[in-house]
């Protein structure tokens, strides 16, 4: 199938206006909510038994990716994992080019967020 694929440049180069120049935290949160929080959430009434994955940074547990603080703290790790397609795991669909570019630009703009004014 590789022969069917095409394109020589990243989305950023092909169409710089494909996503906003200054993505908002809400845009990033919507992506995280759709793609990551299904597994990377804090324990709730469902996860009290530890069935669900939790985000970890080294030895220290942090709240799940449904919180602003976690998203901001882990932003570089998030970007690395979605850009090298190691997350989401298994055969789950990976993020598309627009979603990856939104996260990248948000970080490059200083990751503005309610918890990171």
């Amino acid at each position, binding site marked *: *199938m*590789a022969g*069917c*694929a*095409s*394109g*020589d*440049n*990243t*989305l950023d180069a*092909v*169409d*710089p*206006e*494909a*996503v*906003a120049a200054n993505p908002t935290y809400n845009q990033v949160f919507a992506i995280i909510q759709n793609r990551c*929080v*299904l*597994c990377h*959430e804090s324990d*709730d*009434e*469902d*996860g009290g038994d530890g*069935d*669900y*994955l939790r985000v970890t940074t080294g030895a220290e547990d942090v709240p799940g990716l449904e919180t602003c603080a976690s998203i901001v703290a882990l932003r570089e790790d998030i970007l690395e994992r979605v*850009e*090298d*397609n*190691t997350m989401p*795991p*298994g*055969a*789950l*669909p*990976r993020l*598309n*080019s*627009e979603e990856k570019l939104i996260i990248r630009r948000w970080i490059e703009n200083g990751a503005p967020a309610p918890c990171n004014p």
Partner: protein
Amino acid sequence: MQPLKRVLLLLVLISAAAFVHHRVALAVPQYSAQAGRTCDNCHIMPDWDMPKLAHRKRNMSCQACHVDPAGGGMRTTAGRYYGRSTLPMIATSPRPQDDWDHNFPGIGRRDKATPYETYMPIGPRNLEQAAAYTDSINDKWAWGTHRKLIPTAPFPGRYFGLNPDPKLRFGGDFRAAALFAGSTNVFPMQLDVSTVVHPVHHVTALMVVGARGQSSGYSDTFDDSHTPYFRDLFAMSSEWPYQSYVKAGRFMPNFGLRLDDHTNRTRREFELDNSIPESRVLGVEAGAVAAFPFVHASYFKMKSKFEEPDPWDIFDVDDGWGASLNLGWRSFAWSFGASSMVRRRPLDQGGDTDTFGIYGSFNPWYFSTGIPVSLQGEIDFGSAQRASGLDADKIAMYGEIDYAAWNGVNLLFAYDWADPDRDVIDDESGRAQVGAQITVYPGVTIDSRVRYLHVTTPDGNDADLFVQLHVWF
């Protein structure tokens, strides 16, 4: 592809299909192929009398087994009968016709009790006899009978104890899944309750209320403000000659192969994910499924690509419009179809899309009981506006081969691949699946698949195991 080229290609393909000589019969995918083989499942007259051309169903029409002419979900009486007598490992209804006796070792079947050389040992052989079977109906999920028996409608006794043509029926479709991808995640996938009202011949209303599952847990499924919702809600006039129909209400546009696997890229890349409310539109669809050409055309209005439509207000669709055309030729042995779809919305509501696809199937099972195999595939081309207004060209393709190892056991290999933006480097990916669909008992199917995703970054290649418990009635 330019619009003119698409139209020309479509005309060439249709013309070619119209002149190809073929043997009788229809259909795919695998279950359609099997249902088509079991003649008693669809024939509307006993004694295998050939119905008039206008009423033949030997075309693998989705309507043969499903209420919705587009396929999927709530089943007709013929579909229910197939699900009880032929599909499962352990059948609960006798099947009075030989098809392909390949029972799983140690599993008994009711149809063993019926000698094949004397087919149709049960049920009426004509309309006059059918009247006497009215009292034999024992159906927990259907009520009401039509007083007048007509040759083109199912009649009492034809489907064992099932109500052949009820005025009211309920159905359900419940799915739970387990995903093993480094960790185990168990979650509800789908919770649908369907209601069919069929007050008079030719008039049907279908309502499907569904709750979308959340892989984060059961409480999230019900806490989600968007669930449950009307998955489908339409009124339909059907059962006309050549299985023609018209329906109006909320549904999903008719395009390509309506696959049960909603994650397939031939569906998801083109806003046709059957599991989410965003794929639903409000419109009118008309079609006909003759022996053997078929056509489905729809015009619809829709919500913004970025918003879910109101779960209950089906008229919450003021952000754009679209149209789809799906036509081709479908017999028991092979099928070929072509689809096109346009969507028109303001750029900030998702922009315009143009999609064109071809698909087909081949059913060796039709030629020999020793080859219980069916194949199907689809390739779609499309363009969708990016936020900049420039078009992103897409390609998605899909192929599947099924092998009916035993009654109730279907082994499959499937592969889908997509390049969501042909101008962008390294965004394509492919996914292979090897699995088994085991229908142990009527209404209980276990679908297990090992899935392998390959992407352009080697570290991102990964596999998982997906197991689905599907309970339906």
